[in-house]
């Protein structure tokens, strides 16, 4: 059909964007991870697996593990807190739920740094005194604060698709509230929860601002490590290797999402 070919150049912006701004940079990163650097911090085009070997150093491994732990616990906490909220919203009429969502989007779209700044004040007012600032618990709460909407929206999207009549049918047939959740609601929404979890987990692997600001920068996380390698120590090959590792990890988890991501994000 003539019309098809007439307009096929329209896809050019997308292709430009994808190859020039997404794929290209990543390929370069992959390349760089196999290079070395000299004493001046310049990247030498010598092929070597040195960076990868360096990554196995227990010091770096430690950082990585700590990052995983933070991301995992933040994810679990977010899912745990978001699920009941999302369930409540899913039982409301659409226009009321939309108002709630708008309510949640407003803080979400207000500047992140300012919110963290104010959140520190929140942590300070706690009955426990100042203790929550610069503590692990404080960092975790700040992660929850920041990533909750990431979990909430996909969870809402999943839960919204569960018709109330299914839950009522289970109720009619004798299921207690606990049984309705365990035997009906959870099996149906399980994959949606995994998808929402990944949408929190993967981005939070790169998080370093929150541990730096709320945690006082005591610990090193992957993000801090990367910032160091690229902006301070100028060990780009090492940093690139870490990024390759990070992206690989994310990519192995992603296929589990497949269809669910599209549903969840729209």
């Amino acid at each position, binding site marked *: 059909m003539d019309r098809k070919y007439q307009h096929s150049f329209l896809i050019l912006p997308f292709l430009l964007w994808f190859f020039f701004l997404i794929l290209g940079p990543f390929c370069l990163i992959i390349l760089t991870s196999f290079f070395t650097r000299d004493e001046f911090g310049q990247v030498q085009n010598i092929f070597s697996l040195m960076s990868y070997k360096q990554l196995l150093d227990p010091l770096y491994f430690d950082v990585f593990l700590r990052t995983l732990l933070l991301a995992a616990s933040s994810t679990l906490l977010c899912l745990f807190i978001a699920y009941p909220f999302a369930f409540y919203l899913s039982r409301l009429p659409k226009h009321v739920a939309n108002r709630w969502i708008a309510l949640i989007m407003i803080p979400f779209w207000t500047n992140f740094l300012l919110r963290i700044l104010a959140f520190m004040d929140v942590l300070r007012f706690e009955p426990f005194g100042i203790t929550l600032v610069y503590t692990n618990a404080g960092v975790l709460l700040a992660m929850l604060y920041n990533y909750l909407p990431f979990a909430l929206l996909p969870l809402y999207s999943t839960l919204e698709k569960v018709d109330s009549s299914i839950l009522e*049918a289970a109720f009619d047939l004798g299921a207690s509230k606990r049984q309705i959740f365990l035997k009906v609601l959870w099996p149906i929404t399980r994959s949606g929860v995994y998808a929402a979890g990944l949408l929190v987990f993967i981005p939070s692997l790169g998080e370093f601002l929150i541990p730096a600001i709320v945690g006082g920068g005591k610990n090193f996380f992957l993000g801090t490590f990367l910032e160091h390698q690229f902006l301070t120590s100028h060990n780009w090959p090492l940093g690139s290797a870490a990024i390759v590792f990070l992206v690989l990890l994310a990519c192995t988890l992603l296929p589990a999402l497949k269809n669910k991501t599209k549903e969840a994000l729209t």
Partner: protein
Amino acid sequence: MTPNNGLYLENIKKRFVNAKQSQTSIGGVQNITLSIPSGEGFSLLGPSGCGKTTTLRIIGGFDHPDHGKIIHNGKNITFTAPQNRDIRTVFQKYALFPHLSVKENIVFGLRMQKVRNPEVENRAKEITELIEISHLLDRGTHQLSGGEQQRVALARALITEPEILLLDEPLSALDLKLRERMQLELLSLRKKLGSTFIFVTHDQTEAMTISDRIAVMNRGSIEQIGTPEEIYHRPTSRFVASFIGQANFLGQDQLPLITGSTEQLPNISQGKEWMVRPEHITPKKLGSPVNSGFVALEAQVQDIAFLGADRLTKAVDKSGKQYLVKSPGFETPVGQVTEKILLCWETEDTWTVNTNTLS
């Protein structure tokens, strides 16, 4: 007096504060009083928003009335939880559990009651044979057709042996042929089990096929309760008369145009109208004699439609009122379009209804 046998609703009232409070567009109800003896097939019939689903949900236990009470076999169950009532609901879109197989769907209620396995197997076998779905047991719910899903939903509810089964628009998702078949199957199923079936439907043909009695509802109230015959031949209001079947309404304005035994027509005082069903009107050539006991009206033919078993004629009288006439298809048509004919019917077949509805 509340019977000790069957279901009795007394003065049930439920108001939704605003339309937004309810999850779906279901309407509030008031003054709902009805009595359904055991084993009856009963329908709540009416247009959308009339409150029939609300009433059903209150009977099922998913909503509580603001006023009134529900007595089942002598027990006050107004606030009893759904699973503790001897009543089960088949939901409108079947609400099958998508993550369970057909068999696990069906025995779900038994598992919740912690019934032991051998008994579960027995009862499952019994019910699936009765409803003829034994061959579907291992399938997933998404592999079933609409009719099959409906049977599974039925089996799931009936396996718990409820005294009353509530069905919310059970056949609306099925195509015509399947619907007709299921109507008869539901009828025979009920007779076999001896349970009470209460239906909610907006389809009057369906209501008439499957019920012993029908409650016609409109805007939250019951307009009339009766057998299909009573409702069809002796409707109490204009609404009921026009909701069930077709009806022609005549008032004082048409009186001067009617010839024949007009004195035998029932009296219509203020707020009443005559109602004549289309099949009771016989079209005749202009100038035909009008026998005793009959009345006639001159009208101009607007349209004639041949539907096979029936022939429908639309005509307009001098006062501008439109009439629908139904004649057997095998009879030769009387009159052509724009021709003036005579509409005849027996005075006995003339019924009176209140012009205004109850509410």
